[in-house]
C-alpha cells in the first residue's frame, strides 16, 4: 500500500556541513541557506532599498529643524520645526512659564528615585522603594499643584503634555498595585462574601473597555456624590484608570499567589502567625517577585492607556499634539506630530520592557 503518512525509503544521510565560520559562513547559514530562503532575503533587501533611502532623505537630509510656521519648512522634507517650536508645550502643557522649574523638579525626583531603584550597583533599595511609594507621590503633588509654602497654586486644567502622561502613569501605578493586591487576596479568601465581591469587581472591569470606564468616571462620578463635592477632572480620570487597572493587576498578582505552595501558609500557621502576618511577611514577597514581568506589562499597558484621557478632554502628550495640529500656522504637520509623540511613547514602553527582560534574565 502506498502510504501518505510515512516516508517510504530511508532518508539519505546528510551532506557534510560546508564551512559555517566567518561572515560568509554566517550569511550562507542565516540568509541564503536554500534557494527559497535566498529569494526571501533578496526580496526583503529590495523592499528595504525602496523604503529606507527615501525615508532617510525625507526625515534627515531634507528636513527643516527650526522655524516659526509651516511655510518656513522645506516642502520635500520633514518639518521637525513643528516639534521644536512646540516642544515646551508638549512637555509642560499650559503650565505658567515662571513655574516651570517645579515640573522640572518633579522630573528630577522621578529620575533620581527610578535610577536608584533600577541601577543594581546603588545600595539601599528598601529605602528607595519606601521613598518612591510613600514620599514621592506626596512631594510631587505638593510641588506640582502648589498652594503651600508660598508656592502659587497651579490648577490641574493648566497641566498638560508629557507631564500629565507621567503624572497619570505614576499615580495610576502607585494606587493600582496595592488595590490590586487586596483584590487578589480577596478573590482567594475563604470568606464567600468577600470572594464573590472581589471576583465580581475584577470581572466587571476586565469585561468593559477603558473608554467606557473613563466616560463613567467623568460623567457619572459627579452624579454619584452630593453636589457640594466637586472632583477635579484629572482626579476623576485617575479614579477611572485605577478602578480599571487594579482589576488587571489583581489577576496578575493572583497568578503569583497561586504559584506559592500551600506549605508556606501552613508553616506560617504552625509558627502562630496570623493571616496578615503570613501574607505580608511570607507569601506576598515571594508571589510579587514571581510576577514582576506581569506587573511590568500591566504598567506598560497603563502607560499606553493614559492616552485615552483625550476623550474626556484632558491634555496628555497625545492630545496636546493633536490640538497643536489644528493650529492654522502648522496645518499639514500631522505625520511629524504623530511620529514625535509615537517615538516618545515607544521610548518609554520599549525601555521599560527591555529593562524588565534584563531583570528576568539575572
Amino acid at each position: 500500500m502506498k502510504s501518505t503518512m510515512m516516508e517510504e525509503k530511508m532518508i539519505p544521510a546528510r551532506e557534510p556541513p560546508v564551512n559555517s565560520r566567518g561572515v560568509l559562513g554566517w550569511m550562507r547559514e542565516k540568509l541564503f541557506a536554500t534557494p527559497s530562503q535566498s529569494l526571501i532575503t533578496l526580496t526583503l533587501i529590495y523592499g528595504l532599498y525602496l523604503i529606507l533611502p527615501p525615508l532617510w532623505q525625507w526625515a534627515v537630509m531634507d528636513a527643516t529643524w527650526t522655524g516659526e510656521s509651516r511655510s518656513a519648512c522645506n516642502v520635500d522634507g520633514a518639518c521637525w520645526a513643528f516639534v521644536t517650536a512646540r516642544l515646551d508645550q508638549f512637555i509642560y502643557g499650559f503650565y505658567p512659564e515662571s513655574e516651570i522649574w517645579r515640573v522640572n523638579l518633579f522630573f528630577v525626583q522621578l529620575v533620581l528615585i527610578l535610577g536608584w531603584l533600577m541601577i543594581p550597583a546603588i545600595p539601599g533599595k528598601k529605602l528607595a522603594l519606601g521613598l518612591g511609594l510613600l514620599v514621592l507621590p506626596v512631594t510631587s503633588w505638593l510641588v506640582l499643584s502648589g498652594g503651600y509654602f508660598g508656592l502659587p497654586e497651579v490648577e490641574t486644567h493648566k497641566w498638560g503634555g508629557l507631564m500629565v502622561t507621567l503624572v497619570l502613569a505614576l499615580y495610576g501605578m502607585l494606587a493600582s498595585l496595592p488595590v490590586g493586591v487586596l483584590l487578589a487576596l480577596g478573590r482567594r479568601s475563604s470568606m464567600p462574601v468577600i470572594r464573590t465581591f472581589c471576583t465580581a469587581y475584577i470581572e466587571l472591569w476586565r469585561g468593559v473597555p477603558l473608554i467606557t470606564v473613563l466616560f463613567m468616571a467623568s460623567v457619572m462620578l459627579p452624579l454619584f456624590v452630593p453636589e457640594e463635592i466637586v472632583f477635579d477632572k484629572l482626579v476623576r480620570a485617575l479614579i477611572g484608570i485605577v478602578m480599571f487597572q487594579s482589576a488587571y493587576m489583581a489577576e496578575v498578582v493572583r497568578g503569583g499567589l497561586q504559584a506559592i505552595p500551600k506549605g508556606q501558609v501552613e508553616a506560617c500557621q504552625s509558627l502562630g502567625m496570623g493571616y496578615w502576618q503570613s501574607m505580608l511577611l511570607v507569601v506576598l514577597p515571594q508571589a510579587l517577585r514571581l510576577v514582576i514581568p506581569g506587573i511590568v506589562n500591566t504598567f506598560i499597558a497603563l502607560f499606553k492607556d493614559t492616552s485615552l484621557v483625550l476623550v474626556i478632554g484632558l491634555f496628555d502628550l497625545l492630545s496636546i499634539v493633536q490640538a497643536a495640529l489644528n493650529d492654522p500656522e502648522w496645518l499639514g504637520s500631522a505625520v511629524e506630530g504623530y511620529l514625535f509623540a509615537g517615538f516618545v511613547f515607544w521610548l518609554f514602553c520599549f525601555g521599560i520592557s527591555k529593562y524588565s527582560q534584563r531583570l528576568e534574565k539575572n
Partner: protein
Amino acid sequence: MANKRHPMLVRLWRDPVWRAVLFQVLLILAVVAMVAWVVNNTLSNLEHRGISTGFDFLSQSAGFGIIQTLVEYDESHTFGRTFLVGLLNTLLVSFLGVIFATILGFLIGVARLSSNWLLSKMASIYIEVFRNIPLLLQIFFWYFAVLGILPNPRQSISLFDSIFINVRGISLPWPELNAGMVTVAWVFMACLAAVLVLRFFMRSWLLKAQHQENKGQMVLYIKAAMASSVVLIPLVTSFLVDAQLRWEIPELKGFNFSGGLVLIPELAALWFALSIYTAAFIAEVVRSGIESVSKGQKEAAAALGLKPRRVLSLVVIPQAMRVIIPPLTNQYLNLIKNSSLATAIGYPDLVSVFAGTTLNQTGQAVEVIAMTMAVYLTISLTVSVLMNLYNRWASLVER
C-alpha cells in the same frame, strides 16, 4: 489552675469563624450603605438637573443621522434603533479586525521564528514597534496622517480601474446577485457545512481506517468525494436555476463615486490600526505557542518517519494550538474592547453613537453607560465561559 475567663466579646473576636462572619456582615453593610448613598445622591442630582430616569428614551426619535448603518436608519428612528446600529457597527469592525489581525499575526509570528535572519529581525522590529505605541495614536496616524491627505474623488488613486481610493473612502466593486445566484450561494454554504460536520464525526474512523490494508484506498475516495461535492453540487444547481452574477463597478458621478461598496475612511483607519496593533500581540502568542512544543517532539516524529508536512500538522500544530488558543481569544476580546476607540475619530460604533451622541442628547448617563457596559460585559463573559469549556476539553488528560 487560674484560667482567666475573658469577656464574651473578646472570646468571640478570637474565634476565627465568628470573626469571618463579622467581617462579611460588615462588608455587606458597607456596600449596601454605599450603594444607597450613591443612588440617593444620583436621584437628587438628576432631579436638580431636570433629567428623567428610566428607559423610556429608547422609544423616542433620535433626530440625528449616522454615516454608516448596516440596517435601515434615518433621523426619524428611535434611540433604541441607534443602539442597534452602533452595536452592529462595533461587531462589523471587530469581525474585520479579528480576521485581518489573525492572518497578519500568524504570518509575523511564524516569520519571527524563521531561520532567515533578516526575516526574523524584521518581524521582531514590527512587533516591538507596534505594540509599544498607544493604539489611539496609531488610529490617529492612519486617519489623519495617511487617509486624511488622500486626493479628492476627482483625482482618485485607481487600481485596475475598479478600486478607487480618495479622501472620502475606498470604493470597491460589489457583486450583484439575482435570485438564482443567491440560491446557489446558499447551496454552497449548506454543502460546505454538511461536509465539515461529516468530517468532524468521521474523524476517528477515518484515521483508523487509513492504516487498515483494505480500507486505505476507500478513505482516499471518501475524502475526494466530499471535497468535490462542495464544488460540484453548487455548480449543477447553477445550471438548473438562472444564476447571474454582475459586478457593480464604482463610477464617478459629479463630485463623488456612486455604486459599489464604499469603505468609509473612519472604518478603514480603525480597521487597519486595530489589526496592525493586535497582530503584534498575536505574533508573540503564536511564537510562544510554537516554541512551547519541545524539540524532542519534532525529532521523535521525524525519527518515526513522518514527512515534514505531517510533523507540522500532526505533532507541532495540535500541541501549539493548545497553548495558543486561550491567549489568542484574550487578544480577540481586547480587540473588541479596543474598537471603542472609534469614538475618537467618529466611526459610528456603540460607544460613539450611543455613549456619545445619545448620552449628550438625552443626558441619561446612568442608563446609557450601563447599557453600553452591559454589551461589552456580555461579550466578554460569554467568550470566557466558552473558553473555560474549551480548556476543559483540550487540557491534557494525565495519568
